[in-house]
């Protein structure tokens, strides 16, 4: 009997370790082919999306997206906390308390930023230009290779 109970417990804990739901906490989570920031991007996952993540390995989770794509996501892109989308979007589903919805989707958000802009209090022109500066993985690899930069991934 004891052995059966232990076996069941082991199976449950192994199952949890193999795949547990995690939530994307960045706007565009990049799922990579290898556990490296320089790995090819195989899929992108949006803020608030829930995906299945395996056991953490040196800062990276092996993940499976809802459409079945497999790859790796850095731990800083994921959270165990539920991240509900803002009220009024289709992502607000049952199972999320109103408090979580409120704290995730409201507060200091684009609604507040829009009011500041409307009131003429802050000019975001250069913030938007700055946020548009994009650097690709290929550029970084070339920059590092040419500059003789050899670091751990």
């Amino acid at each position: 009997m004891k052995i059966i109970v232990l076996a069941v417990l082991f199976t449950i804990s192994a199952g949890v370790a193999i795949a547990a739901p995690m939530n994307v906490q960045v706007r565009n989570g990049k799922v990579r082919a290898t556990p490296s920031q320089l790995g090819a991007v195989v899929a992108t996952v949006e803020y608030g999306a829930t995906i299945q993540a395996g056991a953490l390995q040196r800062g990276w989770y092996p993940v499976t997206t809802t459409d079945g794509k497999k790859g790796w996501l850095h731990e800083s892109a994921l959270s165990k906390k539920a991240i509900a989308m803002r009220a009024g979007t289709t992502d607000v589903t049952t199972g999320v308390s109103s408090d979580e919805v409120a704290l995730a989707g409201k507060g200091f958000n684009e609604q507040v930023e829009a009011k500041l802009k409307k009131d003429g209090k802050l000019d975001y022109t250069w913030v938007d230009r700055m946020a548009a500066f994009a650097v690709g993985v290929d550029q970084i690899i070339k920059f590092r290779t040419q500059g003789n930069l050899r670091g751990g991934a």
Partner: protein
Amino acid sequence: MNARHILQMTLVLCLLTAMLFSGCETVREAGTKIAKDAGVISADEAESINRGAQAVEKTWQDLTPEQEYYIGRAVAAQVLQTYPPLDRPQANAYLNLLGQSLAIFSERPETFGGYHFLLLDSDEINAFAAPGGLILVTRGMLRCCENEDELAAVLAHEICHVEKKHGLSSIKQGRLTEAFTIIAAESAKQLGSEELASLTQEFEASVGDVVMTLTTSGYSRKQESSADAAAVKLLRRAGYPETAMITMLDRMDERLTDAGGLGFAKTHPSARSRADALRTTITGAVSAPDAVRQQRFSAVIKPIVTGQ
């Protein structure tokens, strides 16, 4: 009211007081339930107590990545009101390439909106890290860097402030309590104009706290030294020599002394003491900078620091 009733009420009140200060959600909710069941408070009052106490318990660590992003954008916009941007596309592209090449080796390589870098048209020696990853560097700070390795040291230090959320931690707790109270009270509904106005006020004040810390009062000595220590590790992981942090700080120390203690000197512990602290752990000899890195740095940064 009989003795049993008085005892019951006293118990409930003691429990409620303890719960409000205990920060324990389960205990608090159990307490408000007892009070409600005993008829001491109404169901609405119980809910209100729970929500209010939840808001009080929340700190800057409860701000979501999205909220951090919007605070960071406003902080950057406010800093840019005082320090105008330097519109030099080639130099800003280089700064972003260097910054991103470092950020991927940070312990927090991913933020809601990612890391972005911009030069500021100011001779003051300064650099600012807005929450979420918007990093601003003045022309004056570029003058403290003789090569790419030293500029990498400056950016690594700022990236580590973002990684450790030092900006958010400077927001006064009272503002967050107010904001979380407004948010909680409004539940999942759209904010009314009055609530939005109040929330915007708290948002502005929170942004003001961060900007004040970045530009005037500075982070704590402990936060600065933890950013320095993390920056050294980051440089090592990215393949840059750790000694670049010390040579950059030495150069900054010389320039800050000449500048009479403005800018960075006002908000940071002395560059001399920071360099000395790092010397106890970094023992390698300073090597000549890599030729390719020196060439690409000089091509875009030198014209800016010499005013060309």
